Every structure is written in C-alpha cells, then in structure tokens.
C-alpha cells in the first residue's frame, strides 16, 4: 500500500492501469486530457502492457472499445462533455451489445457558450443508454470506484458498461491523497477477464443483425434486469472492496448523519462532498438534518430514496437540468416517492456552468427548504 498524492484524473488513470485492461482507446478533451496523458506515461514506462489506441474522435474511441471488448478483451476509455455527447450512439451500442466497457467521464459544461468547468448535464443526458453511472466525491473514491466498476461490469449478472463520473477540476485537477493498494490486491479483486460472448473463429456468430420486435423486447428487458441486479451487486462489491482495501464510500447512496434526521439532503458528486460540511454546521446549530449522497444514478436507487421519504422530508440539489422538466435527481426522487410517502421534496438547481457551490450555499438552500420559503424547485444563486 502506498499513498498517492495526485489529481483525480491521475488517480483514476492509476486505477484503470492497475485493472489491466488489454485495450485502451481514447481521444483527448479538456479536462479529461491529463487522464489519458497519465496512461500514455504508463505505456512509455512499460507499466501498462495493453494496447493504447490514440483514435481520431470519441466516437471512434467507444467504437474501438466495443470492437476490442467484442473480441474478448477488457477495455477502458475516458472522456468528457462534448466527447461524451459524440459517443452517445456508441454508448447505446456498448450497452445493447452487453459489453462491459469501463469509462471515466469528467463532468464538464456543454457548449455553445463554452467553458471547461463542472456541470453534470453531459452524463445525466446519457442516463437512458443502459450504462451504470457512478458519481464520485473524492480522489480515493475515484480510485476505488474504477476498480469496483470493472468487477461490476464484468459480473455475470450485470454484463453492462459502467461510467465513473468525476467533476471537472474540483476532482479531475485537484490533488488529494489516495491510498493505492498492492497490485496483487487489485488482481485478486478484479480477476481475469472472462468474456460473456465474443467474436471467435471457432464459434462464428453474427452480433447485431436485424432483430424482430419480440426478440428486441427481450434484449431490452434483460438490460433492465441487469440494472436491477446491480442494485444488489453494487453494495456487495463495495463491501468486498472494503474487506480487500479498507475503503468504503457507501452503497447506492452514502448515508451521512441520517440517524434521527427530519430532513435529508440528496446531492451528488463534489456537491455531495461539500454537503457533509454543511450538514456538520447545521447539526451543530441543532438542526435535525442528514445527507444521503447519491453515488449511483443508474440503476436509480428508488427503494432507498423511498425509505428516506418515510423518515424525513427531502432536499435535492441538482447540478443538471432536464430542460423543460426539472433537475433529474429531483424529478426521479419524486417519482420514487409517489404513492409511497407523504414526504415533502424541495429541489434546487445549483452550480450549472461551473458556478461554485460552497457549503455555505448548501446550508442556505437547506435552510430555505426547511423554513418553507423555497419554491418547489428553485434556481439557486441567480440574480433574479
């Protein structure tokens, strides 16, 4: 075990390399670049023995990962923002093909009117592609989640691609210490890749030809079942990793001081980390409030949120907006509560376009929700 003091991107790259993918295909985009550069350094030093394909676009990055995975190899890639959007078609392809590709996405603003700061609309708008989606809150969590992602993606009850999201700059470019386990620990945990189907000259199959509605239906349902299975396996794998490495960042959600709470804050990513300080501050002031940091948005932890709704009113912060509807976490949390709970839900849109969200902002939002002065869903921090 060693301590690595480095940025989220470089720690993510370290995890990816330690999982020993046979093929990495990637294309650079700020703020993901330092992650693929780090992998290139591992290649140059001979510490990464897989194929590293520097493709000419993100669409090709995902296509090459799909090809490599279909040919029976473990694969990894990373992207961000517009890169993820360009991949969109192939995200569906990987998931429908049931190929356990693992990818890091650095959450960044979508243009035009461009900047490179954090915003989660890039990955949130990929939520219907069939990928499992994690959101990290620290560099240690990035390392541990990437390792767990391979284990999860390749599990026979899952066989789906997994996206590990980390917020631009706040995590991708901020140095924090992370404990790196021995290679043997990772090897033992992730295991050797055994493909669930592959292109094989001794067993020739055609993948992805014309399919009738009745069979297509079954393929879709099987994906849904795999996502449902992930609800059991994500906590199980997190527990197993805790045993192997000592680190645990929560199940589908991470519960922070929720005991006896009458209000529970739901947030994700870096806001999720910042929320802990806000909760500490408010608890110091005698407010009965806790935090449930959402680690996984697909599969959506509906049952867990329903349970929280039986205990407390919910305050939900989204660093995304489904234009024409609402913040996605807010929207889906309310859907989970429907008919099952009388809990009040108050939503905030915050931090879009990279706008900073401090613990003080979070506290202000929570207090507004608790004293009833917030609209049902409010755009926080706008000069109206």
């Amino acid at each position, binding site marked *: 075990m060693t301590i690595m003091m480095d940025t989220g991107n470089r720690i993510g790259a370290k995890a990816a390399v330690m999982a020993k993918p046979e093929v990495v295909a990637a294309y650079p985009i700020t703020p993901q670049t330092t992650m693929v550069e780090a992998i290139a350094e591992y290649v140059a030093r001979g510490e990464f023995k897989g194929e590293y394909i520097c493709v000419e676009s993100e669409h090709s990055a995902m296509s090459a990962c799909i090809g490599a995975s279909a040919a029976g190899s473990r694969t990894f890639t990373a992207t961000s923002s517009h890169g993820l959007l360009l991949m969109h078609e192939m995200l569906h392809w990987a998931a429908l093909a049931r190929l356990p590709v693992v990818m890091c996405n650095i959450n960044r603003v979508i243009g035009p009117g461009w900047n490179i700061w954090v915003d989660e609309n890039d990955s949130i708008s990929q939520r219907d592609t069939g990928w499992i989606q994690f959101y990290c809150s620290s560099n240690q969590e990035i390392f541990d989640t990437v390792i767990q992602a391979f284990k999860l993606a390749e599990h026979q009850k899952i066989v789906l691609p997994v996206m590990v999201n980390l917020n631009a700059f706040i995590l991708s470019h901020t140095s924090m210490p992370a404990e790196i386990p021995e290679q043997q620990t990772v090897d033992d945990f992730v295991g050797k890749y055994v493909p669930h189907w592959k292109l094989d000259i001794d067993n020739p199959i055609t993948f992805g030809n014309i399919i009738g509605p009745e069979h297509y239906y079954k*393929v879709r349902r099987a994906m849904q079942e795999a996502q449902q299975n992930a609800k059991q396996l994500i906590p199980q794998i997190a527990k197993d990793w805790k045993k192997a490495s000592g680190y645990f960042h929560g199940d589908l959600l991470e519960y922070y001081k929720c005991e006896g709470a009458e209000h529970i804050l739901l947030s994700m990513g870096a806001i999720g980390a910042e929320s802990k300080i806000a909760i500490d501050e408010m608890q110091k002031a005698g407010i009965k409030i806790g935090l449930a940091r959402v680690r996984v948005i697909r599969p959506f932890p509906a049952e867990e949120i329903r349970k929280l709704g039986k205990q407390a009113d919910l305050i939900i912060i989204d660093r995304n907006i489904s234009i024409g509807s609402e913040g996605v976490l807010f929207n889906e949390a309310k859907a989970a509560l429907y008919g099952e709970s009388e809990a009040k839900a108050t939503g905030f849109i915050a931090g879009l376009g990279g706008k900073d969200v401090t613990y003080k902002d979070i506290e202000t939002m929570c207090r507004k929700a608790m004293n009833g002065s917030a609209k049902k869903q409010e755009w926080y921090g706008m000069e109206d």
Partner: protein
Amino acid sequence: MKKFAVETSLSYPKKGAMGKTGSWRVFKPILDKKKCVKCLRCWIFCPEGSIHREKDDSVSIDYDFCKGCGICANECNVKAIIMEREEVKKK
C-alpha cells in the same frame, strides 16, 4: 456450436436463414450438361452460391436456393444455361 447465455443480438449460422429462397424465382436456369465446358464462370458469379461444383468441375443448380437472377445464363460463354419461366403450379 456454443450458445452464449447473455441476452443480446447474437445470431448463429444457418443455411437457408431466410428459408428456401428458390421460391422467389420467376425464371429458372436450365443447364444443358452436354454443352457445359466446365469453365466454372456460373459457379464463381452466382450471387447465391447456388451453383454446386463437383469434383470433376461439372456443375449443378441448387433450385432450393437459386433466386433466378439469370447471371449464370448471361455469363455462360457457350450458352449452356437458358432461363425458362417458372410454371405456375396447378392445385
């Protein structure tokens, strides 16, 4: 042939995957073996692979799958294949 358990669009090889495509035929190639010089042009150009080649390079037409395009007749340099209209089967 190994079948994979994972539910996705994996398809396995089958001759006649679309059934007996010979039923598509309107014109039928008729081979005159006496005229055939075993040049194999019909065999190599048949889009369907429905001209079978024997060990002695003589050929025969597989009417189960021949779609009746007529390329074999068009490409036969010695006119050993002619196209005839399929007869409508009387019930």
